[in-house]
């Protein structure tokens, strides 16, 4: 009993540690990566005893700044809801990472530990539920600020997120039809099989259109460019205009947490999660017959590292898109969501169903 509790605590701790560190590193990566993409140098001035470490202290400096700044609540704002909103937004973004498996089962002593904070059978629906609840945070922020512009910003945020959540849900239906389960751990386990004897059975090979739709909608869910209309920090006023200090920082963090969660979801659903090609229990089994035996613990560690590498890659990819594409106009955004992506995702479901029927006969 106590051992179970300890294992659960360690898993939660590891998951939060990975998530929050990724968030911190993303604020650094966003500065440096955008700089490299635009032939600049990027932030490199924050130093401790002359040590700059390529600007790695800037997230630290940001945190100090955010925490020590004045926490301003505008006159006429609803104090309770204004304070609650960033917590709601951040909380639901954080807990949605719990469902993403970061490793296979590992035997420790006589216990079988699943490397996932908790394995729900409805898995993926839980993420959508958490995401939908997160919208309340943004709506509350805009509504409680006593500022019409913030209210408009939160309206944009909620309508955008609702529109694209439908596409995400419809896209995932195709994937659930292929893998016959909604549990993320089982989806990843099935992606360890081989297709035609050599190709890893990753979701992207079953659902290429689904991947494009899902990645696009996921970017829209994270509310970052080219879908950053709810915020538009410098031009169109967003829902957190009336926030300052660490409360603003929490909204800022929410975006990055959502980016990491979405990167994890894309990696899990379409790129085999923690599966390393040809690595299974007992070591590598190559399709040409060769095999490298590995102890169980080494396999487990390698799988966790594989997941982290995939997570980092998709965070990088989302940043790449974010710094390449210009922002949509709002009518273009809604038209893309309802008239283009939703019909395509429904078509994707129909095509998947037809192919599955054909294969069964």
């Amino acid at each position, binding site marked *: 009993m106590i051992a179970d509790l300890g294992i659960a605590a360690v898993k939660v701790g590891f998951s939060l540690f990975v998530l929050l560190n990724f968030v911190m590193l993303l604020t650094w990566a966003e500065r440096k*990566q955008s700089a*490299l993409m*635009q*032939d600049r*140098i990027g932030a490199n001035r924050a130093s401790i005893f002359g040590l700059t470490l390529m600007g790695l202290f800037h997230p630290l400096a940001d945190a100090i700044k955010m925490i020590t700044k004045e926490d301003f609540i505008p006159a006429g704002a609803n104090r309770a809801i204004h304070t609650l909103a960033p917590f709601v937004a951040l909380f639901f973004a954080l807990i949605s990472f719990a469902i993403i498996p970061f490793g296979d089962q590992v035997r420790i002593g006589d216990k079988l530990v699943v490397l996932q904070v908790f394995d729900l059978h409805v898995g993926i629906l839980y993420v959508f539920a958490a995401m939908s609840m997160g919208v309340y945070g943004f709506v509350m922020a805009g509504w409680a600020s006593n500022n019409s512009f913030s209210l408009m910003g939160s309206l944009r945020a909620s309508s955008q997120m609702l529109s694209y959540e439908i596409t995400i849900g419809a896209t995932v239906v195709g994937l659930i039809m292929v893998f016959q389960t909604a549990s993320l751990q089982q989806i990843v386990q099935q992606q360890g099989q081989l297709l035609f004897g050599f190709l890893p059975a990753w979701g992207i090979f079953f659902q290429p259109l689904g991947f*494009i739709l899902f990645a696009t909608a996921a970017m829209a869910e994270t509310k970052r460019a080219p879908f950053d209309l709810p915020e538009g920090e410098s031009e169109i006023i967003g829902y957190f205009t009336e926030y300052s200090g660490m409360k603003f920082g929490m909204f800022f963090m929410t975006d990055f947490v959502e980016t990491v969660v979405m990167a994890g979801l894309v990696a899990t659903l379409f790129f085999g999660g923690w599966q390393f090609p040809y690595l299974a229990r007992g070591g590598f089994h190559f399709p040409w017959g060769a095999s490298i035996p590995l102890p169980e613990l080494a396999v487990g560690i390698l799988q966790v590292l594989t997941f982290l590498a995939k997570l980092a890659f998709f965070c990088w990819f989302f940043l*790449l898109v974010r710094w*390449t*594409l210009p922002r949509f106009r709002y009518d273009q955004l809604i038209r893309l969501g309802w008239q283009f992506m939703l019909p395509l995702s429904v078509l994707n479901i129909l095509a998947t169903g037809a192919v599955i029927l054909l294969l069964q006969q």
Partner: protein
Amino acid sequence: MEKQNAEQRSVRQAPPGEPDLTFWERTYVPEVLRGLKITAAHFFRNLVIHIFHLVGLWKDRRGGETIQYPEEVRGYSPRLRSLHRLTRREDGSPRCVACMMCETICPARCIYIVAAEHPDPNIEKYPERFDIDLGKCVFCGYCVEVCPEDAIRMDTHILDFSAYSREEMIYDKERLLSHEPRRADGIGVIRKVKRCT
């Protein structure tokens, strides 16, 4: 009429001189990938250059266009009018003969000269004081052009001078004499500067 409007709305016309979008361009995805290719190429090119810099290689290639100003200075044009300096004779005394031409022509009235008799009878006068109030100077360069003795020049290529009070912005004769000319590095050539902060 209504039908015509609907037709105009449905057909998106490309700007004049540009071909209409093809089907693949309209699906948006290949064009997005093309854009990502360009930015990713820049990212990896600069990343590789920075990694080589870390191990001390490829120092002649720059991994970005940024000039990190206080530490790096770009070579200016030789024509640039920068901080003034007073030139010297071969024996080291100022060339200035205190003719007051520069003080007279200065539109900002920032030059203040006190003339004194020179011990050498061939040279009539010399400046006992020669102050330039850089807080007033407009860097028009008239003083340089009007000088009959080539005694004042604006070729130090120093641009970043500042002070905490107006008095400190008044540069006296000794200070102006101490400035060194800066031969043009070549326009745009980046030079590293060591500064104590």
